[in-house]
């Protein structure tokens, strides 16, 4: 039995984890057409964006969503409780450049699979999301 009972329980540990990797400008629940990206971040230093889908179990659904998030983010991850992350077919994620973050009960996180830069990025979407982040950070 995991201590994570809802997806939002994963948000704080994952946000801290990616912040330490330079994605300091962050927002949760970022609207992207009919979707809402659970966590979206921007690293000024690396000029890179990251989109993360938090899921307790259903990694296949997460894969469908994250493949669409590649249109607006340089790096895309699925974050899951460590016990669920073990059951993910990593080859499917790897084939699509999607990364995987395991969240331990202690709140610490680890990369199970590192996301790759990909060719699906749609610059107008990416820039629009970065601008949104900057505006909300200034507000």
């Amino acid at each position, binding site marked *: 039995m995991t201590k994570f009972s809802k997806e939002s329980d994963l948000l704080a540990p994952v946000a801290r984890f990616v912040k330490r990797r330079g994605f300091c400008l962050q927002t949760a629940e970022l609207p992207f*057409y009919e979707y809402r990206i659970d966590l979206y971040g921007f690293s000024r230093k690396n000029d890179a964006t990251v989109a993360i889908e938090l899921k307790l179990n259903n990694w296949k659904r997460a894969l469908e969503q994250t493949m669409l998030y590649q249109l607006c983010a340089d790096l895309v991850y699925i974050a899951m409780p460590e016990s669920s992350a073990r059951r993910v077919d990593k080859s499917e994620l790897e084939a699509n450049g999607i990364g995987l973050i395991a969240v331990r009960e202690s709140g610490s996180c680890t990369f199970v699979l590192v996301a790759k830069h990909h*060719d*699906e990025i749609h610059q*107008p979407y990416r820039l629009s999301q970065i601008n949104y982040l900057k505006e909300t950070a200034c507000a």
Partner: protein
Amino acid sequence: MPELRPTVILRMGSHSEKEYIEKTLKHFDGLMVGANLLQISPGATASLLLKLHKACKRPYFVDPMTYAFGSYFDPETGRVRDDLDWIKSEQKVPGKKGVTERKFKSSYRKLANYFGEPFSTALDRGKALTQADFSNDHVVDEACRTIIKFQAERLREVFKEDPQTASYANDLPRPGAVFAPYFYIEPNRAKHWLSLNNRLALRTTEQSKDIPVHVVVCGHMDLLTNAEHSALVVDNLLACKPAGVWLWFSRFDERVANKEQLLALRWWVEKLTTEMSVFNMHGGFFSLALSKFGMAGTMHGVGYGEQKDVVPVIGQSTPTVQYYLRSLHSRHSVLQIQRCFTQLGIKTPEDFFLKICDCAICSHIVGAGLNEFSQFGEIHYSTPKSKRAAQTPAAAKRCRYHFLLNRILERDYVEKSSLPEIADQCSRSADIWSKTVIGPASAHAKLWAEVLNSNL
């Protein structure tokens, strides 16, 4: 098997769709309006139908919507509902600010008043009609007479009521057919409802001498594959011999149906087509393809309605109008389509026109740059208080026009293509798109190919 020219009837759900109808009806084969729409806005509806008649002379039909006064099997609760709640709405109480009460919608109240007993009685008692309400043959006779009159005469009555339009009343055309009153064949009492619908169909065909009679078979999706009940309905129809039949299996969706259900729909068409015109009340490309087996046509709305539940979904926000992908004959989000560009080798607008769509709408939008495709999915916050972004009206409009233009292309494609060519197109498209993010949603096209090719 009798191969027919496929036809598409557009259904107008509300007057907000008038613009689409006015601009495109000349490319389609007819128009359906619901009796509730005609009754709530009689002048506007009559004027529009006259204008359309003068412009393009397409037949129109009035769906009498009698099923709305019957009972319904609620799949959510597994219970039969007879509270008529689906034709009620929250309405302001005059003089009491902020207070509402749940009352019958004005359109259905007016419709019931026109139809008379037992429809008006059902509303007065707040309980759906049952077969017992029609136990007397005189009631059946009167109901059929009134409902034929409504469909055949209501437009002219509306014009005659207004001195300014009275002299034009006879310019209004008669409908292409009149529908017999019909009720949802609720599965728990299927035989009773089948019997009542058959009586209503028989009396209507006897009464309507000038205008062809069409019958609606409106039932639970299980009716489609229920051998005993299917045979009974088919036998009744063959004995009744209406000019046409419209099949409406509640919640049946060509794109999610299994092989048994798709084969069953084909079976219904083949059984009936030699004796009457067979239409799918809510269908899409698969129904058009069934014209190769004798389906006369299909109907849908201007941007939705290729499947419909008998009871409308209440209380949901306006759904996003998604982009119609002609090669798969299904709708997908703008993001899903865009995510396929790389995999399909779409790098320029020309690639897009070749591999996805070159209709007038897409040519205009994507012609300005591939990135402009996102215009089909534009979102905004409709009010400052909106919590969720929704599709802009302009984006929804683009998607609707794109869909309508594609539907015309699909109909014409089916007409000029052979059955093996259509099946092959479905199969090849499924193969191509199965390698993309849309993959899981392309399986229907493979199944359609199988059903169209199969020997029953």
